[in-house]
Structure formats: C-alpha cells, structure tokens
C-alpha cells in the first residue's frame, strides 16, 4: 500500500471538485436568479412547452407558506403515482423478468425512501423491481426529489438574501431545476458512463454458461442512466442490491471518480450560489470551508482507520499490508473506498462502493457521524440549508458577544425564528435516538440485528441515522425487510425530510420580511475566518455532542474492546 499515491488520488479528486464549484455555482445562480441569460434560447422553448402542457399560467412569486404547500402537494401527488405503480408493476409493460408486485409495507417504505431523496432500499433491485418501475418510479423520483431539495435551498437563499417576503415560484423553480440542471447534467454523465462500459439496455437478464458448465443469471438493464441521476441527485439507490460496488454500476476507478464528483458537485457548488445571491462571495466560501474542514477530518479518520486494518487479524498474523479489505472492492482499494464512503455520507447520497458494515469500528463511525451532522455538504440543497441553519444558530450564540441583538445577513434573529429553528434542530436527534431506543425495547427491532454486541448498536443506529439524514445507505447487516423496519424507517425518513424543510422555509419566509440592518463596524461579521471557527464550534458542540453517548456505546466501545 502506498500512502503517497493514496493521498495523491484523493487530492486530485478534491482538486477537481474545487475546479467545478465556481462555474457550476455560477451556473446554478443564473438558472434561479430569473434574470435573462444566454441559455434561455435553448431552455426557454422547452419550459414554455411544459408550462403550456401543465396549464401553469400563474407563475407569480409565492409566500413561504404557498411555496411549502406547493412543494408538499407536488411531492404527495408523485408519491401516490409511484406507490400505485409499485403495487401493480407485474401487469405493467417493460417487465421482461416477470417481477411480482411489491408488498404493502415495502412499497410504503420504498416510495417514501425515494420521494425523500433517501433511497434506503429494503429490496434488491434485480429481483424487486421491473424495468418500468426502475425507470418511471425510481428514476423519476431521483429527479424530482433532488429538484425538490435544490429548490428548497434556492428558496431559502432567496429568503435570507432578498427583500419583499416572497421566496420565488415553486413550480418555475421545480421545472427549471429539471430542464436546466439535472436533466442536462444527467445526460452528459450517462453518456460518459456508457462510454466507460456501464450497461444501458432494456434486454432481460443474461443467461450465461460458465466454463464449469453451470448457468449463471447476469442482471443487466438501463443502469447508466440511473447511475448518473443516482449520484447527481444525491439519491443513492442502486440498480443492483450491492449498489456502486457492483461492477456494472461502477466498473473501474475512473467511473468511481466520476460518481464521486457527480454526487459532490451540486451540494458543494450551492455554497458558491449562496455567495452570489448574498452578493458577498466570501459568505459562500466560509460555508464551503467549514464543510471542507469537517470533510477532511472525517476522511482522514476513515482512511487511517481502514489502512491500519483490523487489530484482531493483525494479531493472528494475517497479511494486513493492504489494510482492512473486508467488504471492499480490490479495484478501488482503501483510498477510493474511504473517499467514496466519506462523500456518499457527507453529501447524504447513500450509494456505496464498499460495505459499511464491515468498516473498522472507527471507520464506521465516520459515515454515521457525517449523517448525524447532516451539514457537511449534505444532500442536494438540504445540506446547505442545514448548514445555514447552524450559521444562524452560531450567529445567535456568538453574536450576542459583540453586544448587539444577533443578526444574520442584516436580519435580526428573533423569537419566532428561533422557534422554527428549534423544531429543525430537535427533529434530527429525536427521530434518530427515539426509534433506536424503541427498536432495542422490542424484539421486532433488536431481532433484526445480525451482529450482537456493540456492533449491533451501530447497525440499528446506522439504519435510523441514514433514514433521518435522507442518506439511504445501509450498514447492510440488518435483516430489515420486515413490516416493523419498513414502517419505522419510512416514518423516520418522512419526518427527517419534511419537518426541517417546512420549518426552515418558515425561517426564510420570516427573515425575508424583516427590515435590513445596515452593516457597520459594530456588526458581527459572518464572512471571515473567525466566523468559520464559530460555525465549526457550533456544529461540533450542538450537532455532534448530542450523539456522543450513543456513539460511545456503539463504534467507540467496539473499537476499544477490539484490540
């Protein structure tokens, strides 16, 4: 194992991301600033057609309540359509493999999972879904849920940076997120992936004759198209059960890098978009750097931990020069696996190219912590919004120390805003720790654990954390396709998505109504290094410490008792 090469590979990927942030962030700004620009010539006719088709004549600015309501109703309609298709997929076309209808609680879980951008999968794609379901339900939701997240971020940014009390028009934003951002990017990434040998076909499963004379079923399908939006939309639901560790989903290190960058690009670039809207690019870079600091810290932890390998194996004299390769693909190695794990859980995508269940204890702590924080880049849109919520919280705590009532971007933070923020920060620990405790109180829950002991705690905790953060990756050790788990995680995913979206859109609405306080030398600045430190401290003190006790009982205890 060559540490130098590993660090170089990681540095190259991070360097590529840095190159993407500014142009993509600027592009997203132009998409949603609603000012005329060059790309209108291409996209305007398409959008005009869509608006004509859907009868969307009134596209005026909306208050936060109308925006949130439009968002919820749109999501609800899509949920109903998706649920129905899953329940009747057997009779629908494009089902060459004759796959049966999906069960009730599994359909409930699956549909919420995809609508909430979680993509927790309690089914296996090869056997659970027809091509029709894959393309119409899964892929459609991968687009719509990502677009939902992005427009939430845009509406939130507008609320905190512009005057007037409105957040924009949901439907316009929602359509534009598809036509100008997700669909064009998905087409490009799909073509590249196809070029790199990712299958894209509607043919049925290949019956192959192996050299030993046995018949092998090789599942294929429209993989590349799903793969692109799966990552671009920080969705994470794989075409196949084993997700991006499957050689058809992620055949080689190059596709691995493309997938990493695809899921990382939009969440990271949105910080730049925020800076553009705030008319102060430093604001955006501060948010970006706080995310990056946390990211690098966690990446280092998982990389070092995996490189050091499993101490038990070390002590029995196994060859551990490769690090802990259990559950990892040899074509990726430790560096590409560690990086993928960190990106997929920080950007709350949830695709995996290695089994998180078999990460070393501290390695497994990393994805869990990133999802508990839910602010290190985060899912499309929502990650930025969560981080900005922490920024408001940081301003409120530290801002008092300059002797003024706290203000963020010139707006005072008052009781009404704090109430809404309180709801958002309360929801996350409540829906992670509450269900985890409930699961340990009943055999319905603890019965699913496959590795008892401290690792069992990690398995359950991971499942709910992944659901609450709308990540969707699984520790995959849990026998989780039971009504109990389907319903529990379904509810957690639902609350994890919409409670904070509604509360934070409320904050944006409230802030957009406020009078601006002009900036003076006595103002608490949110665009300097000092604030980056304050923000980092707030995230750690309020976001992370909450979960310390239970992390101590899970991965940390496992780590301490292992050696």
């Amino acid at each position, binding site marked *: 194992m060559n540490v130098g090469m590993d660090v170089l590979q990681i540095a190259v990927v991070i360097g590529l991301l840095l190159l993407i942030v500014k142009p993509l962030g600027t592009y997203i700004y132009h998409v949603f600033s609603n000012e005329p620009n060059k790309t209108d010539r291409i996209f305007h006719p398409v959008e005009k057609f869509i608006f004509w088709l859907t009868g969307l004549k009134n596209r005026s600015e909306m208050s936060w309540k109308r925006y949130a309501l439009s968002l919820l109703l749109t999501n609800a309609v899509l949920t109903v359509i998706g649920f129905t298709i899953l329940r009747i997929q057997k009779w629908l076309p494009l089902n060459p493999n004759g796959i049966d209808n999906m069960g009730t609680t599994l359909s409930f879980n699956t549909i919420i999972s995809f609508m909430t951008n979680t993509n927790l999968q309690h089914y296996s794609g090869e056997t659970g879904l027809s091509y029709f379901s894959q393309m119409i339900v899964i892929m459609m939701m991968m687009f719509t849920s990502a677009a939902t997240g992005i427009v939430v971020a845009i509406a939130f940014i507008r609320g905190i940076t512009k005057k007037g009390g409105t957040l924009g028009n949901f439907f316009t934003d929602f359509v534009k997120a598809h036509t100008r951002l997700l669909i064009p990017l998905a087409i490009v990434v799909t073509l590249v992936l196809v070029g790199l040998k990712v299958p894209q076909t509607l043919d049925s499963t290949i019956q192959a004759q192996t050299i030993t004379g046995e018949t092998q079923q090789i599942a294929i399908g429209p993989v590349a198209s799903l793969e692109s939006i799966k990552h671009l939309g920080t969705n994470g639901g794989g075409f196949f059960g084993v997700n991006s560790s499957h050689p058809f989903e992620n055949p080689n290190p190059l596709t691995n890098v493309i997938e990493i960058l695809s899921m990382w690009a939009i969440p990271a670039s949105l910080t730049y978009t925020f800076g553009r809207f705030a008319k102060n690019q430093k604001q955006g870079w501060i948010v970006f750097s706080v995310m990056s600091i946390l990211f690098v810290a966690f990446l280092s932890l998982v990389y070092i931990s995996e490189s050091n390998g499993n101490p038990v194996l070390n002590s029995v004299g196994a060859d551990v020069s490769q690090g802990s390769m259990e559950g990892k693909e040899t074509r990726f190695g430790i560096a590409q696996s560690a990086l993928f794990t960190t990106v997929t859980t920080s950007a709350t995508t949830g695709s995996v190219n290695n089994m998180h269940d078999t990460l070393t204890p501290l390695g497994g702590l990393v994805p869990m912590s990133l999802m508990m924080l839910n602010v290190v880049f985060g899912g499309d849109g929502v990650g930025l919004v969560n981080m900005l919520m922490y920024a408001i*919280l940081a301003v*409120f*705590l*530290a*801002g*008092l*120390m*300059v*002797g*003024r*009532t706290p203000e963020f971007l*010139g707006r005072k*933070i*008052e*009781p009404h*805003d*704090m*109430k809404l923020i*309180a709801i958002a*920060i*309360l929801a996350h*620990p*409540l829906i992670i*720790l*509450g269900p985890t*405790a*409930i699961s*340990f*109180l009943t055999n319905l829950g603890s019965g699913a654990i496959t590795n008892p002991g*401290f690792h*069992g*705690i990690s398995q359950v*905790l991971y499942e709910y954390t992944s659901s609450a953060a709308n990540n969707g990756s699984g520790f995959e050790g849990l026998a989780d396709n039971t009504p109990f788990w389907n319903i529990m995680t379904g509810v957690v995913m639902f609350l994890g998505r919409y409670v904070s979206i509604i509360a934070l859109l409320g904050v944006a609405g409230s802030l957009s109504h406020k*009078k*601006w*306080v*002009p900036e*003076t*030398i*006595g*103002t*608490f*600045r949110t665009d*300097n290094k*000092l604030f980056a430190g*304050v923000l980092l*401290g707030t995230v750690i*003190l*309020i976001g992370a*410490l909450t*979960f*310390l*006790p*239970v992390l*101590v*009982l899970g991965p*940390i*205890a496992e780590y*301490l*008792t292992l050696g």
Partner: protein
Amino acid sequence: MDSTNKRKKLITSEIVKYALGQSFVKLNPMVMIKNPVMFVVELGTFIVLLLTLFPSSFGAEANFGFNLTVFIVLLFTVLFANLAEAIAEGRGKAQANALKQTKTDVTANKVQSGGGVKSVPATELRKGDIVIVAQGEMIPGDGEVIAGIATVDESAITGESAPVMKEAGGDFCSVTGGTRVVSDQIKVRITSDPGESFLDRMISLVEGAKRQKTPNEIALNILLITLTVIFLIVVVTLAPIAKYVGVNLEIPVLISLLVCLIPTTIGGLLSAIGIAGMDRVTQFNVLAMSGKAVEAAGDINTMILDKTGTITFGNRMASDIMPVGQANVADVASWAAISSIQDETPEGRSVMEWVRKNGYTFDESKARDAEFIEFKAETRMSGMDLKNGWKVRKGAIDAVKQWVTTQGGTIPADLTDKGNHIASEGGTPLAVAVNDQMLGLIYLKDTVKPGMRERFEQLRKMGIKTIMCTGDNPLTAATIAREAGVDDFIAESKPEDKIAVIRREQAEGKLVAMTGDGTNDAPALAQADVGLAMNSGTIAAKEAANMVDLDSDPSKIIEVVSIGKQLLMTRGALTTFSIANDVAKYFAIIPAMFMLAIPEMHVLNVMGLGSPMSAILSALIFNAVIIPLLIPLAMKGVAYKPMSASKLLSRNLVLYGLGGVIAPFIGIKIIDLVVHLWI
C-alpha cells in the same frame, strides 16, 4: 448625595438575607416552571429524593449514600440558581423600599372649585386637580407648575442635593411627586392619577414587578429549552440502548448526566442578568421604562444629539485674542481682562479665564475703584471707566467701531478682515478698545465639552454614527461638528427636522437614539427607538421617551448604549461558557457510566478521575458551584470597552468559549481530588 450613597451600598447583609429566604420560596414548582431549564433540574432532584427516601421500593438500597449526595448537590444547584435571581431582585427591592419611604402620607392643599383651599390626602388627588405647595412642603403628585416660581429639592429621586428651579411655562415647569419645595410657593396642576405617578412607576420598575422578558431573552430561552429537550432525548434513549450491551444505568446517574448537559449555568443566571442590567441603568440614575429599551440601546446605529448642552457648554467662551493694527496680543489681553474684571456674564468670565490660562498679566490696580459700564441692548458694549479717566470698552465690532470713531480714533485696516474671518469660522468677534484706540478682537466661540471628542471616537469604534442638531447657521455648525468630531450635523434645525432625520435613518433599517427635554422634542423622542428624556424636561417629553435621565445630563445616552451592549454580551458570554462546559462534563461522566461494564472505557477518562462515582459527583458539583461563582459576573456584566465587533468577538470567544472548554477540566479534576477521598 446621601441617597446616592445609600443606593450604592445596597449589596448588604440585608439583601443576602432576603435572597437566601427567597431561594427556598422559589423552589415552589409553580414559580419554577417559568424557568424550564431549572424546572427539569428540580424534577430530577425530586426523583432522586424519592429514590433516597424509599430505596426499597426502587431496589436502590445499595446506592443510598450516592443517591443522597446526588440529591443534595442537585438541590443546591436549584438553590444557587434561585439565589442568583433573588440577589438581583433584592437589590431592586431595597431601592424600591428607599423610594417608598419618600412616599409617606402627604397632605395636599387642594384648590377648590369655589376658590378656597382644602387639605386632602395626596392619594385623593386626581388628574387635573390644582394644589398649592408652600416652602418646606412635599409636592403631593406629578404635575406642572401653573403659577409661581420655586426651588425644589429632588434628591429623593435624583440623588442630586442641589435644589433646582421650577417655574410656570417653559421647559422647567414639571415637578415630581415626592420632592420638596425648598423656597417660595407654587401652584401645581396634577397630571397623574394615584398609582400612576412617576414615583410609582419607578418603584415598580426597580422592584422588577412589571419586568417583561425582552425579545432577545425569549429567543435565548427558546434555544435553552431546545437544548434541554435534546439532552432529555439523549439521556432517556440511552438507557434502553445501553441495556442491550449489558450496561445498566441507574436513574440517579442518568439524571446527573442530564443535569450536567443541559445549560443550567445560563439557565440559572439568565433572569439575574436581565434584572442586573436594568439595575445598572438605574444605578446610573437613568430610568428605563423597559428592558427592551436597554437592549435596543445596545443595537443603536445612529445617535442624534443636541449641540447645546450635550456637545457644547452652550455658552460662547473666549478661545483666542487677536490684535489689530499696531497692538500686540499682550496689550489686547491685558485690556480685555481689565474690561472684564467686573463682568459677571459667562463671556466676561471666560475672557478672564483665557487671560489667566494663557499666562498674560494685567495691572489690577488700574481697575481699582473704576466704574463698571454694564452691557445694554442699545449700546451693545460693556466696559470700565477707570479712575485716571481712561475708558475701556468691549462689544460688538460695529458698536465699538462707532465708539472709537466718535472719540476721534481711526480704525485699523485689518479689523474687518479679521472680524469676518472669526465669523466665517462660526465664532463671534468682540472688539476691544481703549479710548480712541482699537486694540483687537476677542474670539468667542461655543466650546466643546472636554472629553466629547474621545467619546465620539469610541462611538465610531462601536459603529455608531453621530448626528448633531443645532439652531446655528451652517458655518458655526460645521465648525463645532469638526471640533467635536461628530459624523454629521443639521444646522438651523427645527423640531420637525429631527423627526425627519430619525425617519430617514430608520428607513435604512437603523436604530436611532436621541435625547431631548422640550415639549417640541416629544414627537421625535417617541419616534426614536431609544429616547432619553431629561428629568428637568417637560412631562410630554418624559412620557414620550422610553428612558428618563434623573440627572438631566444628555450625554449620558452614550453610557446607556454601553450598558445595553454589556447586557447582551453578558448573556452571550455566559451562554457560550455554559454550552462549552459540556465537553469536559462528557469526558467526566461518559467513561464513568460505562466503565464498570466496559473496563476499556478508562481510555476516555482523560482527566484521570478517581472512581466512576467520584467522577459523576465531581461533574455535578462543578455544575452546581459554577452558578454562585458566576453571580458577581452576571451582576456586574462582562467588561466592555468600545472596539470593533471582530475584536470584541475574538476576545470574548477566547475568554468564554475557550475558557468554557478548559475551566471545567481543571475544576472537575480539583473537585475529584477531594471527593475521591471518600469514594
């Protein structure tokens, strides 16, 4: 001044006694629920008490000693928080008592509708009644002087012993109930009903009876409750999860963890900080009508100040002497002094002072037995007719010029130029002449109070813009503005201009403070976010303002801003400290909780605490004693020096953020060294 001293001495054994009593009274859950953070602690205390009293019902016999200790420490945590609030309240109560003493039974001489005078108790007076107050009598209620002139001793309210003049009409007509007429007699129209007087309001304010939480306090409280609920979730869910791996967590241990994690430090001190902040304003002889006004003062962006009385002394004073023609400065100075020896006007005295200060001498004997010529509107000159027949005059240039010419003298060519120069700088030139000789000019100007420049400099550092309002012409105004170092000025300003400026600034989102005393200031005072009225001012001004300065010193608004900022800073600093403390407490309690079942956890015991039980108790004891240790800081407020927000923030972050992380590591370790001797 004795009543001021009384106020300052008030942190006495009396207050401590009162506070100790109140700490127990406040244990009443109905009272406690207003402070949700401490209510949770009290609830925990009660549960541990049950476990201690009836160990057999909970199977907790083995831990009797530990449970009892936890109970005691928790009880003290609650008591300490109560004590903090009670001390702050006690100070106000004691002040209110002092004020109430002045409100003894007063009889008033009420003028009957028929014209006669009848003695009635002051409590029976209603708005609009007319009373006569004679020398030595107490004024029975707030009112306006409608006839007569008198000196009034207002020391009971202001602490200032020098009596003040009150007369009908004008800006000095308002009188306050509870003050005493020292000389003469006045007729007063009562302007307030019983219970609504200034004194009543003052008593209820310092008593804290009507104290309402400010928006910022409410918002912070929401955050503290949220953190409490989060940690409640953490602790409640921990038990079943831990049980899965065979760790049994006792209820007192879980309660200890909860109490250590929830922000008890700030929760216990929050209301004390608010009360103490108001109290500091009162100590400063400013009455704030609400805590909101004090906090708003901390947020001020723009300050509108009257020139006269606030920035300058309001009198024109000699600031230079310029010779004309052949004369030299020493000559002009000595004759200017001689002309002013008997001149008691402020201008005259300032000439004497200028001469003395600048080291010029004059022959006093020349002025002996001289005849003083007083200033008259017709002559516009004053001066001396000396015994040797010489005549000295000083006065308006054209008047003196004419006087010199009639004596047969000539006028030096440079007089007009020099005179115009002074006028162009906003000053007033006074010509000095002896007999037929024009000697020179005295440069009179309005002088900026000492120290004002530095204060405006400080305000600039705080990010506050100052605007000076004056009735002077633009030239004079510009000169004073430059000298005082204010950012902007409005010359020839009328009362409506002030409102216009306030509205303009507010439209830009700024918060505006202003001071005023006259009736025509009232609308502007009401429009401003922070309006400070002078106690000497009219009732209308005082009603419109949200603060009243009892000493009638308009420049105090600057200190009020500092106090407002200090109040907010104290709240922020202690919140940060409280939350930062959690890191160390985690490292104390978490390994202790799990060490018995998972011995490897000792790695996390970074402080090397003696035993699991002693670790938990030490963290809990630290959590309790930090509250009384911080009471003085909560009362006094954190130190505030005007500086930019970034500097302030880094300073406070290091002190209270970093300090808040480190302090408990040291504190808990020290406590553990002692506690470990027993367990």
